[in-house]
């Protein structure tokens, strides 16, 4: 009896034509749901902040240091400026310009990292001047709200750094740019969130 190999027909998955592709991809839908959840988290934190802020007769309390407005304003400009290289990166991805894409995403990550660094310096100075997590509702709400945003920036910067490395290796070819777009959407969310938090905490 002769033995032979069984030929298994290869299943060919056809590409989805543009008119058949869904208007909102699964990745984008997942990112929208994630951002909605994150927004609710921050809405809860802002709600708690509003209770303490509006109920207090003196805000900030007279014995605690004021928040450094000038430094944080410059830091905010740096964070918002990071949107420019990210937009450039998305344009480079559409043109399949690998070098420019990696460089622009790297610049965005650097600006985000610089924002975190300056915020870290600011926090160290505030702690040295006596504003800690335990110094009343003022310190607690400040560190929880701004710290929560900082954790999100840290996550986004890590994501950007990984994306820059992948872009350098040429991972984002035609039709495989969803991770880059998701990273960009998340960074836009983090920057937009700061536009709400900065006036609320520092200017009010």
């Amino acid at each position, binding site marked *: 009896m002769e033995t032979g190999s069984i030929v298994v027909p290869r299943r060919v998955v056809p590409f989805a034509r*543009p*008119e058949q592709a869904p*208007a*909102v991809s699964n990745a984008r839908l997942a990112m*929208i749901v994630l951002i*909605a959840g994150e*927004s*609710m988290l921050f*809405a*809860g934190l*802002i*709600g*708690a902040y*509003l*209770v*303490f*802020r*509006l*109920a*207090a*007769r003196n805000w900030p309390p007279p014995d605690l240091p004021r928040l450094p407005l000038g430094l944080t304003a410059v830091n905010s400009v740096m964070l918002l400026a990071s949107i420019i290289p990210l937009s450039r990166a998305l344009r480079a991805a559409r043109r399949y310009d690998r070098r420019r894409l990696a460089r622009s995403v790297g610049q965005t990550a650097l600006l985000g990292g610089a924002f975190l660094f300056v915020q870290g310096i600011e926090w160290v100075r505030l702690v040295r001047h006596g504003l800690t997590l335990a110094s009343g509702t003022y310190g607690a709400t400040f560190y929880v709200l701004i710290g929560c945003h900082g954790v999100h920036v840290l996550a986004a910067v890590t994501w950007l750094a990984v994306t820059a490395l992948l872009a350098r290796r040429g991972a984002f070819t035609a039709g495989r740019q969803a991770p880059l777009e998701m990273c960009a959407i998340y960074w836009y969310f983090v920057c937009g969130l700061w536009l709400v938090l900065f006036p609320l905490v520092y200017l009010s």
Partner: protein
Amino acid sequence: MTISTRRPLRLVPVFAIGTLLGAAADALAQSCAMCGSGLSDDPLGRAISWSILFLMAAPYTIVGTVALSLVWIHRRAAGRRRAASIDLARLQPAAAGEPSGGGLS
């Protein structure tokens, strides 16, 4: 002369938003009857009322924004699809009239 019947319906969201904004005026910033009667006089009560109002508005705002953006994306995609089909319809008669150049019979 055609009379548009859709125009009055477009004003409904405007009236709804206006009513909601009016209800959230300073004097009416009491998120519920209990909060209004029990807490409205002192600063803490007012702070809690404003916070509850904010937290009530947050999910509607977020879900509304997501829903509107999804509707917008779908409409844009439908428009693109329509534009592509119109282009194809324009190209087809021209392509049909062209010689099949290079084909072997």
